[in-house]
């Protein structure tokens, strides 16, 4: 297995540690992010299109079946119409599937606890995510003006960390 490349996104919510569920001075753990240079097919489309609305979530945070499910109905994407033309959708799906959590780029920790019959479409529904973000599962978290949503990873993982 290829080693999972880590981009140390460690820096903190200095201003709002409580909103990020952190004690003063505590640092969020790094989010595993593949380097986005080098450009395998579909990667540029993925980075451009998906990051128009949100962080380009790392492919290695969902299994291939989840990415296939998500990209099969982009016109109903968590309350938004995120539809793309068929060739672009196909290239993005190819990129995500080939770098998914259960691909050779994935990490066993991300798949741990996920039953074979489940296909979560939200990273926040992945057991690994819920294990490490239990503080964000409290009622009311994610409704404030700062974090806004648990999908807003970069509010806490706001990444001035170095590559790897």
């Amino acid at each position: 297995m290829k080693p999972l490349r880590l981009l140390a996104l460690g820096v903190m919510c200095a201003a709002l540690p409580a909103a990020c569920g952190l004690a003063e001075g505590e640092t969020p753990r790094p989010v595993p992010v593949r380097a986005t240079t080098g450009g395998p097919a579909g990667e540029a489309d993925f980075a451009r299109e998906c990051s128009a609305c949100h962080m380009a979530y790392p492919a290695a945070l969902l299994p291939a079946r989840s990415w296939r499910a998500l990209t099969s109905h982009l016109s109903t994407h968590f309350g938004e119409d995120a539809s793309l033309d068929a060739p672009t959708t196909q290239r993005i799906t190819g990129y995500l599937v080939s770098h998914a959590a259960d691909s050779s780029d994935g990490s066993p920790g991300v798949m741990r606890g996920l039953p074979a019959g489940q296909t979560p479409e939200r990273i926040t529904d992945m057991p690994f995510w819920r294990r490490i973000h239990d503080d964000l599962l409290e009622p009311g978290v994610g409704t404030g003006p700062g974090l806004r949503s648990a999908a807003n990873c970069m509010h806490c993982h706001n990444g001035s960390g170095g590559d790897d």
Partner: protein
Amino acid sequence: MIRRSAMAFSLMLLAGGTALAATAPAARQSILDHYAAEARKTDAGFKGFSAAAGQAFFLAHPGTGRPETPSCSTCHTNSPRNQGRTRAGKTLAPMAVSLSPSRFTDLAKVRKWFARNCHTVYGRVCTPVEKGNFITFMAHQ
């Protein structure tokens, strides 16, 4: 020699900047022309786009789209001069052309976002007149 090269480079930069500044309004006008041509197909008496109608369209809460996005302002705020924010938390550049000069200069991109956002906010396809009014309003902001 070095000084001459530097001067030539500065001139190139200046020319490049001028070309860019001239290109964006022309590209935007050609998109407006496209929608005007579309508008005339269904209304031979079409007289031109209205910034005021575009503003009303931007500020409306039509109640016919998705509950998550009742109006354009859900993400773009009530003023095109403000930065917006997506529901997932990403900051959006202002819609106002004076602050975001590259807005409405790429027809494929304009089509993509009208298709998506008319669907989510209005629950339907927008008409060519609505699209032209919208761009005209933003171009005057």
